[in-house]
């Protein structure tokens, strides 16, 4: 993992700024503190799913009903969600920002965690564009991700390359 600090409240502020309505998620160890911060944000409804493959279809339904959802799942869960990504995001032209926990990520590329090894090749293979966010300094990429998703009518990934900090620490 990266040494930079990523505060959940700053990410939540970005989501509020983008008028996100629903945060469809299966929590993972890296994003635990993000979940806590979201539960304290009244303008965003958290939708917990039992398996990552549900996240994109639920988001697709929300979007069709006029809402502005995002999803947040771990890289390992994204692999499980491949068919939904194909059929109900790429296949329908869904402008969806997907926050992907980049489990095992480091800048050296020598991670023993295959969940990290395969993430960027996976996104390239599926032709999903992405940014990697490793600290608060990278958060200016988040509005760009929403802009790109909306402009292309395609899903866009924001890979979270660090563990969210706890509170204001």
């Amino acid at each position, binding site marked *: 993992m990266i040494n930079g600090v990523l505060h959940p409240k700053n990410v939540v502020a970005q989501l509020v700024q983008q008028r996100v*309505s*629903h945060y*469809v998620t299966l929590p993972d160890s890296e994003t635990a503190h993000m979940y806590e911060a979201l539960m304290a944000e009244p303008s965003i*409804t958290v*939708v*917990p*799913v*039992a*398996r990552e*493959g*549900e996240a*994109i*279809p*639920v*988001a*697709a*339904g*929300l*979007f*069709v*009903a*006029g*809402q502005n*959802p995002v999803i947040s799942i771990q890289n390992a869960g994204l692999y499980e969600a491949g*068919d*939904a990504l*194909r*059929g*109900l995001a*790429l*296949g*329908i*032209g*869904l*402008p969806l920002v997907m926050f992907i926990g980049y489990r095992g990520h480091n800048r050296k590329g020598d991670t023993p965690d295959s969940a990290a090894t395969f993430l960027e090749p996976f996104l390239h293979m599926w032709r999903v564009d992405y940014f990697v966010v490793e600290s608060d300094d990278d958060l200016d990429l988040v509005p760009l991700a929403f802009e790109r998703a909306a402009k*292309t*009518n*395609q899903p866009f990934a924001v890979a979270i390359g660090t563990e969210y900090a706890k509170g204001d620490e």
Partner: protein
Amino acid sequence: MITYADACRVINDSRGEAVSVTTMTQTKYWNQISTEPDLDVGIANAMSKASSVALGVALGDTDRSVLCLDSDGSLLMNFGTLATIAGMAPKNLYHFVFNNGIYSITGGQPLPTAGVEYAKAAEACGYASAHCFNDIESLDSALPDILSSDGPVLIELIVKGEPQSEGVDQTWDSNAGLPNQLRALRKRLTGTDDWGPGGPYI
């Protein structure tokens, strides 16, 4: 035992202006009788996820009922959806499960196990209520009251299997049509036509 055609007819009779999210063989019969095609979505592209799409629509438009016409085989592929739906507890979601014990569109192979009781599973997960019908008269009589009760409700239908020898409209044509169906539904639900093209089928 209920036929697909009768089940779809009876459901459609009580539909009103509900959104319908269908899958598999139900889509074929539903498309033959639906008078609200702009409120219909047939989910073939991403098998098993009809109930998840229906949940999203139900949460996104809480003033409108959403009917999901799901299959036993599809539900088994996405069984966690029962817990997810129960957790969000949308009052406007009515989840029909057509239980025939086989994979119809691939020729009638049996499911991994027979006798799964989907209504009981939904109740155990925390649906507001669950029902099981194996004759059309009982379904016809009970459905108006069920659809006016608070969801999420699971309605299990014991249906006569119709194994397909030539497949149904679940592949290229339906995949290609899905983006346009979803855009039509969004336009109907939101009153705006602001979802531009994107994806390989458009």
